[in-house]
């Protein structure tokens, strides 16, 4: 008995030492530093405590799909013409169905030629081709569409990561979020200046250069008038300021070719510069070699026509082509900040689709600090109240429960340090709740022991029976609480997950402290007592 007791005491002391170490040093080697430094090194503070920004973005992947089908429309039109199919019209007739291309006006004589083009791998690998009277319908394959959407999402995440890195944020979280909803979660600890974040993310917007077909005009109808009143299927109407440099202009309408000449990923490098004559801010850019050839081909064939720089579906500047441009150019009409942002954006590549904010949360550092103070006050007050009550109500056994409670807290915090968990404000609440629930197990055991004593059992038999009976109940109560915490973890995000994790760790540690540790202390006390001496409970 004596020997067994020594072994168990050894386990408890070792646990205490090891977990105290984890609280201060996590899983690493001992370091020097103040207590506060060590604590925040091993237990990370969540955004809500440290201050920072939490964002959920929606990536509009359908836009990227639409851009792909738009360029396929243009390609198919050329390919059909090359194959000798005359008079065929390729277009997307239903603007709400971005993944369907319609081919019409194919005469029966040309059917086999058209079939030949459509059966080529460049189309049949991405599209399901169906015959309709005098034409075909091409629907993008589910598989291709899925792959494309996931590429778009991954590219967006990479691009945003590069932007955020340029802000110099320590430990940013940028990851896919939700179940297949094309959402991105961004967490930026320490950044509570919303405008700074806004600029960085906003500047990841979509940039393209389009051919201008009509406009500018004051209304959409007027813009269309120049084209004979209706919008051709390969064109689109885009709004923009009439002059970007002048402030307070009302919106003007432009008609642009739907297919961009060059877009986001075609840009290779960019610098903010000043026009040597006017002193205006500009962004000079270089194109990748493939895009450069395309751009040269287009500009040499279209000297005198207009091109528009479209940023996030808005015309930012319009220029006329003075001569063939090979692989570099200048975007005019920007403010100094805009020129700088645009250059940064072009250097790292723009987003393949536009984004919108689903959820934004910023917490200032002083609010976070106040939350910590309040959380610690509440924890200390709650803990003192509980410990005091246990001493008052159970006397000697109260000391036992209080020791178990302290060890429970040490293990919980040590576990958090070891796993590098993030402590959130609800997480602090979880710690406080663990204190309250932690003594519940002790109460169950002590009440049972008292009951056994009233029945006239000896102290050691009462302790034996008390633990044996309460054990079953303790397991049942812990399992139900952990089940609900697990579901909370599965459904929750950020701070709520932190709460679920703390609660579960706390309850698991509690099984050890309230049962194993308390039992050892009781046995140690009983060992010293003379036969028949009463137990203080």
């Amino acid at each position, binding site marked *: 008995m004596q020997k067994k007791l020594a072994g168990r005491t050894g386990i408890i002391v070792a646990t205490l030492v090891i977990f105290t170490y984890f609280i201060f040093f996590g899983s690493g080697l001992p370091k020097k530093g103040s207590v506060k430094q060590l604590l925040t090194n091993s237990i990370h503070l969540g955004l809500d405590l440290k201050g920072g920004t939490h964002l959920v973005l929606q990536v509009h992947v359908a836009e990227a799909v639409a851009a792909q089908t738009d360029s396929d429309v243009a390609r198919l039109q050329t390919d059909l013409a090359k194959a000798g199919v005359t008079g065929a019209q390729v277009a997307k007739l239903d603007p709400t169905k971005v993944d369907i291309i319609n081919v019409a006006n194919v005469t029966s004589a040309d059917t086999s030629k058209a079939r030949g083009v459509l059966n080529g791998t460049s189309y049949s690998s991405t599209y399901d081709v169906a015959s309709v009277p005098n034409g075909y319908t091409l629907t993008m394959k589910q598989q291709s569409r899925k792959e494309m959407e996931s590429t778009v999402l991954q590219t967006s995440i990479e691009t945003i990561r590069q932007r955020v890195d340029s802000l110099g944020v320590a430990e940013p979280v940028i990851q896919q979020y939700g179940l297949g909803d094309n959402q991105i979660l961004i967490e930026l600890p320490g950044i509570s200046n919303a405008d700074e974040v806004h600029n960085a993310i906003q500047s990841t917007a979509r940039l393209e250069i389009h051919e201008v077909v009509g406009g500018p005009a004051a209304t959409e109808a007027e813009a269309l008038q120049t084209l004979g009143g209706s919008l051709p299927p390969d064109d689109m109407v885009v709004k923009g300021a009439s002059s970007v440099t002048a402030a307070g202009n009302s919106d003007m309408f432009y008609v642009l070719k739907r297919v961009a000449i060059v877009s986001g990923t075609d840009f290779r490098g960019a610098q903010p510069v000043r026009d040597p004559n006017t002193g205006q801010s500009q962004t000079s850019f270089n194109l990748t070699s493939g895009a450069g050839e395309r751009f040269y081909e287009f500009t040499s064939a279209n000297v005198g026509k207009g091109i528009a720089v479209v940023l996030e579906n808005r015309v930012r500047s319009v220029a006329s082509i003075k001569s063939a441009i090979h692989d570099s150019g200048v975007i005019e009409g920007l403010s100094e900040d805009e020129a700088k942002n645009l250059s940064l954006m072009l250097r790292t590549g723009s987003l393949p689709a536009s984004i919108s*904010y689903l*959820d934004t949360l910023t917490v200032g550092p002083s609010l976070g600090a106040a939350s910590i103070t309040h959380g610690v006050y509440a*924890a200390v007050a709650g803990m003192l109240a509980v410990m005091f009550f246990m001493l008052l109500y159970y006397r000697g056994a109260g000391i036992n429960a209080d020791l178990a409670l302290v060890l429970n807290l040490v293990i919980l915090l040590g576990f958090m340090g070891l796993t590098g968990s993030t402590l959130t404000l609800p997480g602090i609440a979880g710690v406080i709740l663990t204190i309250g629930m932690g003594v519940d197990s002790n109460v169950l055991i002590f009440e049972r022991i008292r009951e056994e004593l009233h029945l006239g059992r000896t102290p050691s038999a009462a302790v034996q029976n008390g633990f044996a009976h309460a054990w079953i109940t303790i397991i049942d109560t812990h399992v139900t609480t952990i089940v609900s915490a697990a579901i909370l973890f599965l459904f929750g995000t950020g701070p709520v997950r932190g709460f679920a994790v703390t609660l579960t760790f706390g309850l698991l540690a509690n099984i050890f402290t309230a049962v194993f540790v308390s039992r050892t202390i009781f046995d140690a006390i009983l060992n010293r007592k003379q036969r028949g001496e009463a137990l203080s409970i």
Partner: protein
Amino acid sequence: MELFRDINIDWLGKKWYLLAFSLVFSVAGIFSMLFWHKIPYGVDFKGGTQVHVSFDRTPSEDRIRSAFDAAGIKDAKIQAVRGDQAARPEVLISLPEKSDATGFDARAAVLSALQSNYHDGGFKVESSQTIGPTAGEQLRHQALFATLYSLLGMLVYLWFRFELIYGVAAVVAVFHDTLITIGAFSLTNQEITLTVVAAILTLVGYSMNDTIVVFDRIRENLASSRRETLSTVVNRSLNQTLSRTILTSGLTFLTVLSLYLFGGEVLHGFSFALVVGILIGTYSSIAVAAPMLVAYQDWRIAKGKAASLPGGKRA
């Protein structure tokens, strides 16, 4: 010290009073949810913008309101809140959901309205949150399903550990607690946020504890005394475990109360849910769960079936 010794209360004899008590609170809550304050969803569930602003000096709400009116923002809700920093009074400004557009717009609108039209003293944005309508709706679904799955999980576990009727009785009791807690939020018109849902889910697990303590004792007593009626056994079990039920809940209540009093504004809703929920949860394990076992037995006898004691499997 010992507070509850040799207690002998006829709980089941008072079941009609207890039932009436539960009914009054449930029905009041349901009425408020349907006809009065509805379910006061927080910004995370209904979408919209909330900006926490702290001021150098206590601001007049009217002055803030006129600042917003001047900026053309008519639908802003302005509300002084118990601040986290004693020296800086705080105001919560809420804008209803407008569109799915960039989330910083609303925040910027609030900021510029104050900057250009409010001149009574300095202010600072402490935190801001914008939720789009789709995100809010997703979250509502998730919260509902999480609560239902949680209840289902309890039912299955108790079925496995005891018997089906024990599981049903316990889940009905916990559902009753959840309903009254949400009702309390509706009656007092406090917003239900994501952290409140976290508190409610915790309650689902925790309220179960008292019920299990009672059920464990009923099962133990049924095994040893087969001659007594079920209601005698249930009454005795309730009385025997009364000290446990009250002490465990009381101690957890102490910590939750300190969280409510000292935990600060951000955790206010969270701790309010726990304060209400723990009180109701303790009550319901005595007044709802255990009487349901007896009611089920009576119903079986009335239908002429064998009065199989739901005592059952040994652990």
